[in-house]
């Protein structure tokens, strides 16, 4: 039940679908994205990239480039090596080349940087750099990569391509359960490499001011403070000390995780700016973005369920090979190289589970978690929801019945899973039943039977996912040692307006509005009067940034806690002004009233004014607070999605006829913004399910390295999303909110995949790997003798 807002629409606290405060500049074309920013004497950087996935660099000849009009310099790895800046650490404590000194390890890897007076001259310079390579064998198949005798990708790091092994759960208990099972269901699934492809690519404008000895970098980054600290650690030895570094994330045109890693281009731009004392602008183009930036997924999964014959799940076993490319540069919390993948028991009460993941180096770009995945939760949910559907079909049980039978029950929360997570709250049955009712599930099953009798192929797919977000408690979570708290600093002005700064960074999620609404909720100051800022490391309190749906759970909580500290001080001031005891005052949004004397009250605005003009003796003036919030747990949003598809037997096309999404993200700050997040997430769930894939041929050449072949759905391929909600607050979050940004990318792909397999199950089809292209479907149909 969605609660009624406690505040008026004029105040705009939680629950109001307030129109966004940030829209004014965007609808006028006055956004401030990195490429919009111009500094005096600015130079341009463009990058020479290798066509070979694995090669020795024999020679780099920059003479033609240096003779090109407008070109000022060509920087190579050897130049950076002089300053020990040719290598950098990754977020998972691996290392990665900034520019190579002797070898390249992925196609389109950065090889040299051209500095020029204009964008066009820099491009001409890149075309004029001649590089001689001696090709080496590419390493494309991660299974072959970890076999003995495989060509080494990282001889500088290890004498094997096996990066790490990681386990969760109880291996022996799980083995026993599988021995005792009435039946087991297993499947191999490959979730291919995909790419976020936010419409704005990555880039930066690095400006080192030699007179002030200060570095300012405008950067497309979702985590500016972490970047500042990493730059200070990496480049401190050349004089870039942390207090002299300012990272500014301006407006960002979509992040989705792809703007968390530190890319070589940033580091080169910073180094060149430092050496030349001039601003250096580097903006990658789309093909560079798709071919060299951090990817997502690329998990080869073997998953099995142990079951009783009545359909009760007793155990889950998952083994996975992770293709990490040439460096482990995924942005995972450090103790979780496979992210939060062990959430793979999902929404089900499973007594025993074991998850094992191995990671392999290949000659491909590094990464793994850069596409709205909550740290590998997309992979985990895909595995369990596909398995659940296969099990249901094998048992000839309705997939909804199967899920309802196995769901964790509301009274079991907080629920300790077999892999060690404590789920805060959930109502899986409620969400699924609402989705079934909304889509008229029983009627659809009847229709399916009728159509099947006529040879028409229609499928219904369910995904009942549990998300795990809000990283995270300091006892368990850190990135490169930095704990994953987040922060808010709120200051109330004399006239009762406010400024609130946070350690996160919105890339479209609406923080300028939602954070203001949190302050409005807690203090009764209208959200319209709360100025929200993020992204400038000189002014924002330290935070770990926005990704993995952590802003509302962590920074939003910090905002509430800081506001409550302010309210505590406001109470003291109010008591002083009203000449009453603090304990005699009652708070309603926006004012303190003396209990029993409704005419004796002070508004927050009056209190704010008094904080500067009439504060009690012995108290500091001012009205502000900072909170660094260490969440006690993660939060667990959830939902049930149901998808209906019709398959064209002639062409193999899958048409999504309906898609109902019931989400539960706890208490909702702004319903309009939450729905927007879900719409967008669903589109980015549809895309990998049916369209998106980055492949490498056996020679290591990328396929799908431009928008010609990396297919983003348009408004024509995207159905109308039908949304609904249940509300199960988080018991530990100050606002009861859970976060929602990635629920839909997590939940949607298996709903669609399940629908397609459901349409074809009667033909003997058990599983289809995403993306489910028309070609794949056609092949299956023809193999099964179905044609038009």
């Amino acid at each position, binding site marked *: 039940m969605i609660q009624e807002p406690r505040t008026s629409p004029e105040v705009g606290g939680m629950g109001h679908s307030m129109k966004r405060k940030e829209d004014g500049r965007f609808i006028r074309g006055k956004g401030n994205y990195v490429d919009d920013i111009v500094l005096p004497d600015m130079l341009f950087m463009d990058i020479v990239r290798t066509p070979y996935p694995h090669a020795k660099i024999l020679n780099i000849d920059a003479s033609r480039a240096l003779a090109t009009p407008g070109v000022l310099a060509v920087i190579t790895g050897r130049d950076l090596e002089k300053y020990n800046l040719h290598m950098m650490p990754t977020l998972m404590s691996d290392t990665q080349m900034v520019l190579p000194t002797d070898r390249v390890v992925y196609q389109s890897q950065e090889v040299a940087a051209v500095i020029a007076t204009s*964008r*066009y001259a820099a*491009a*001409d310079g890149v*075309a004029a750099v001649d590089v001689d390579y001696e090709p080496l064998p590419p390493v494309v198949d991660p299974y072959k990569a970890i076999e003995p005798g495989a060509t080494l990708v990282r001889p500088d790091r290890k004498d094997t391509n096996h990066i790490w092994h990681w386990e969760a759960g109880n291996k022996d208990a799980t083995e026993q359960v599988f021995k005792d099972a009435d039946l087991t269901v297993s499947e191999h699934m490959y979730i291919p490499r995909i790419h976020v492809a936010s419409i704005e690519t990555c880039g930066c404008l690095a400006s080192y001011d030699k007179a002030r000895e200060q570095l300012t970098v405008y950067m497309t980054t979702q985590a500016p403070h972490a970047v500042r600290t990493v730059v200070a650690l990496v480049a401190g030895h050349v004089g870039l000390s942390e207090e002299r570094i300012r990272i500014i994330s301006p407006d960002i045109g979509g992040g989705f995780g792809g703007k968390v890693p530190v890319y070589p281009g940033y580091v080169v731009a910073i180094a060149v700016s430092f050496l030349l004392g001039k601003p250096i602008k580097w903006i990658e*183009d*789309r093909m560079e973005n798709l071919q060299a930036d951090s990817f997502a997924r690329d998990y080869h999964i073997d998953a099995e369920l142990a079951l009783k014959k009545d359909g009760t799940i007793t155990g889950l076993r998952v083994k996975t090979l992770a293709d990490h490319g040439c460096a482990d540069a995924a942005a995972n919390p450090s103790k979780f190289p496979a992210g939060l993948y062990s959430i793979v028991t999902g929404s089900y009460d499973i007594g025993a589970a074991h998850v094992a993941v191995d990671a392999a180096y290949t000659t491909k770009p590094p990464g793994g978690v850069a596409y709205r995945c909550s740290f590998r939760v997309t992979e985990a949910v895909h595995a369990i929801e596909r398995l659940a559907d296969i099990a249901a079909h094998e048992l000839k049980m309705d997939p909804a019945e199967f899920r309802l039978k196995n769901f964790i029950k509301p009274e079991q929360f907080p629920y300790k899973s077999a892999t060690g997570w404590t789920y805060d709250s959930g109502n899986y049955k409620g969400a699924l039943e609402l989705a079934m009712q909304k889509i008229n599930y029983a009627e659809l099953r009847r229709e399916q039977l009728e159509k099947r009798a006529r040879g028409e192929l229609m499928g219904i797919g369910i995904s009942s996912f549990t998300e795990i977000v809000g990283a995270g408690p300091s006892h368990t979570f850190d990135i490169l040692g930095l704990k994953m708290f987040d922060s808010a600093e709120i200051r109330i002005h004399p006239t009762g307006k406010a400024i609130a700064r946070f350690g996160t960074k919105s890339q479209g999620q609406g923080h300028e509005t939602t954070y203001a609404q949190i302050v409005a909720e807690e203090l009764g100051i209208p959200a319209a009067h709360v100025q929200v800022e993020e992204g400038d490391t000189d002014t924002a309190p330290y935070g770990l940034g926005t990704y993995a749906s952590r802003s509302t759970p962590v920074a939003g909580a910090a905002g509430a806690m800081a506001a409550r500290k302010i309210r505590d001080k406001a109470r003291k001031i109010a008591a002083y002004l009203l000449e009453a005891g603090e304990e005699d005052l009652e708070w309603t949004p926006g004012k303190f009233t003396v209990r029993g004397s409704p005419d004796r009250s002070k508004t927050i605005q009056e209190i704010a004014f008094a904080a500067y003009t009439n504060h009690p003796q012995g108290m500091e003036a001012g009205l502000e607070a900072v909170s660094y919030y260490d969440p006690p747990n993660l939060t667990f949003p959830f939902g049930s999605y149901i998808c209906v598809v019709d398959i064209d037997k*002639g*062409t*193999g*096309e899958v048409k999504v006829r309906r898609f109902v999404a019931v989400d539960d993200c706890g208490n909702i700050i702004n319903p309009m913004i939450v729905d927007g997040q879900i719409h967008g997430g669903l589109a980015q769930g549809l895309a990998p399910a049916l*369209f998106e894939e980055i*492949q490498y041929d056996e020679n290591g050449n990328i*396929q*799908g390295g431009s928008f*010609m*072949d990396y*297919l*983003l*759905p*348009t408004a*024509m*391929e995207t159905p109308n999303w039908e949304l609904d909600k249940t509300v199960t607050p988080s018991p530990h979050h100050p606002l009861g909110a859970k976060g929602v940004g990635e629920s839909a990318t997590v939940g949607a792909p298996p709903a669609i995949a399940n629908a397609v397999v459901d349409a074809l199950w009667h033909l003997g089809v058990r599983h289809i790997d995403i993306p489910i*292209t*028309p*070609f794949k479907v*056609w*092949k299956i149909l*023809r193999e099964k003798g179905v*044609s*038009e």
Partner: protein
Amino acid sequence: MIPSRFDYVAPSTLDDAVTLLREHGGEAKVLSGGQSLIPMLKLRLATPTVLVDINRIPGLDYVEERDGALHIGALAREAELERSEVVRSRYPLLADTAHVIADPIVRNSATICGNVAHGDPGNDHPATMIALDAKFAIRGASGTRTVAARDFFVGLFTTVLEPDEIVTEIVIPTPTPRSGGAYRKLERKVGDFATAAVAVQLTLDATGACQRAGIALTNVGATPIRAASAEAYLVGKPLDATTIGEAATMAASAAEPVADRRGSEEYKRDLVRVLATRALQTAARRARGDTGTREG
């Protein structure tokens, strides 16, 4: 995404344009809609030294029916075909085709003559023009000539055009009564090239049998492919499920697809069969006058 340098000229007559092309040999390229050429320049896949922009030449942007034919000028845009009532009602194959080229924004700039002159097997109009028995008026430094669409495409990205020649007009004979056409294309998403596509133009005789059939295939060979055997098979026969099925199968065997990310050779061949079936069904319905619109 920055082109290499080139000189740019925007002549105001066709004669001047053609003279410039001859002067520069293969080093000059014609700029009309630019929606195929400019992307190639940006990727430096093409590096002409001179661009001859014909957009300033007046009198080339017409789509008009006269003298028993539809005349499409060199600068007529795809969007104009979509807007034209004449095209929608009497040349539904052409309307179908225009509707699935690239996306609506590109269609405001892209020209029909450019689409055929470029020689890209992925372009849609070539097959349509073959099915419609269109002729292309060509102007070069040595004069003018007319080439039938079916003789125009000779190889991958290769047409009969000499470096100094421009396609100035496409002429499509106005279909006689009891005619109908349809274009059926499978694209992975809006904006993609065809996985396969089939263009069909039919004329029926008074008994409802096929009098003339034009069937051509897009993106399943180095050039657009005329399914001549399928065409010949249909002449004189009624258009029913059997004959349509047979013709579609024959059209599929005329295809010479190459496997790529869109699918295997077998898939594309079968797609030709499926799309040809659907295009033939729709074209026949339109020819019978069941509906005169593209939605038929």
